[in-house]
């Protein structure tokens, strides 16, 4: 692709359909990478051990640990995807 696929252009259809699509473009790749990161991370680190080393006073089971870990990863990857999405939009505002 010669130009960023998600860059806004004149003639774009505004509205909810467009917004949902952009949301998908940000959320889906970050979901996939967060899933891989979670698998690698928790294959090497036991959430129980992590809890004992960080918040020993909190009661966090392994299931909760995996879920929290996954959403933390997803949060980070989605933030990165979102910034990339913002930066790929033209800066001169011709799409506004």
């Amino acid at each position, binding site marked *: 692709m010669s130009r960023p696929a998600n860059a806004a252009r004149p003639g774009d259809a505004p509205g909810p359909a467009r917004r*949902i*699509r952009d949301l998908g473009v940000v959320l889906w790749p970050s979901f996939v990478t967060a899933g891989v990161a979670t698998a690698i991370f928790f294959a090497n680190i*036991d959430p129980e051990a992590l809890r004992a080393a960080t918040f020993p006073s909190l009661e966090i089971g392994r*299931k909760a640990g995996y*879920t929290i870990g996954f959403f933390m990863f997803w949060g980070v990857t989605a933030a990165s995807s979102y910034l990339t999405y913002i930066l790929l939009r033209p800066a001169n505002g011709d799409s506004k």
Partner: protein
Amino acid sequence: MSKPKTKIRMHRPGASTPADAMYAAHEKVYPREVKGRYQSLRTLAVFTLLGLYYLLPWIHWDQRQAILFDLPARKFYIFGLIFWPQDFFYLALLLILAALSLFFFTALAGRLWCGYACPQTVWTEVFLWMEKWTEGDRSKRMKLDAGPWNREKILRKTAKQLLWVGFAAFTGFTFVGYFTPIEVLGRELVHLNLGSWELFWIVFYGIATYGNAGFLREQVCMYMCPYARFQSAMFDRNTLIISYDPERGEPRGGRKRGVDPKTVNLGDCIDCNLCVQVCPTGIDIRNGLQYECIACAACIDVCNGVMDKMAYPRGLIRYTTQNAVDKIVTRVLRPRVIVYGILLFAIAAGFVTALALREPVAMDVLHDRNALYRLVGDESVENVYLLKIMNKDIKPHTYRVEASGLKDIRIETDPETIVVQPGEVLGVAARVRTELDHVHGGGANIKLVLRSVDGSNMTHTETTRFLAPRNR
């Protein structure tokens, strides 16, 4: 790339320039139902893949679920094998294998994955069936959507939503059933006492299924799928694609059944537009290869049906290669395919070998942290270790530990013969002793050999450090 690349033209009717097609106002696609050889293949793929997905968690093996990713216990059960976090290597190999297979099959046969095996395609297909059962065929669905909200529309739409939501919920339930024993999960569901995380993930996966297969559909492939974008890098002019034969088809135009096209100065395409109507992504294959094409071959099936009716030969739209279309010889074996193929074979062979040679026992040796060594009388020195013995097999085993590497080395474990249950990690204290005179320079490497004594003939050797006072 220096080789001529298959040009992927992007064209959508109604878009002024190809680039605008990205975000041209989205029109709902109403794929028309189709019958034919490739549709039968896809139906078969749907039943096979979804059948596996929904049935596998219910299969038993040795009084437990055959496939269970027991995350709380950090063990994966796959039929007779138990995998531990230490076995992550196998998962990594498996992922590499999957990626290489995708490269290999893409180079060889294009987007087979998209058309037949991708979960997005498979679940969308089932959601479309449900839509057809409740709302009728393509024209009925379009009429229903355009029409007013009368009793029939409300009933039909409600029925569809009930089917969709029910199926999506069952999909989410099955998904969680791979991580929590599904029969326990089922009982919890019936008694309405599901754990909060189980419920959360059932709902999460259910919503994802509903959203992707019911609502987003082809838009996932067009706007969200990374593979759709980079698959063109694996394509070349010898890759199997779905293509319309413009030389044979053009000029297109309507005519009566059975008319010889030459007599009316037309090509074989009767411009019935059925190939556009069946397309799940709403493109016109006659405009050439487009990145939206998921190679589902619905247009081939429908066009072949039309050709049969017109008594023209089949294959106006067909599986072919860019070279074949351009009347150049197609080469199946080419460097790209050979390299992918060799890599794929090598890693697959490595994976199988590693799995076959996998030691069903493992042992970690931890030196006692409190005392480096202990002097026993004037003559002997003793080191204490904690042995963590892990039985990765599906049967209990009995082991004994031996020590070697120093003269007169003796080991005592408590108990002397160690029974470890399948999947258990047992901590065993071991005292290793030798004469002070035999250890020089403050320590030596010794070997601890774990040996099964129940006839299963397994050994596992760990090297560790034996410490002694330096000033002797």
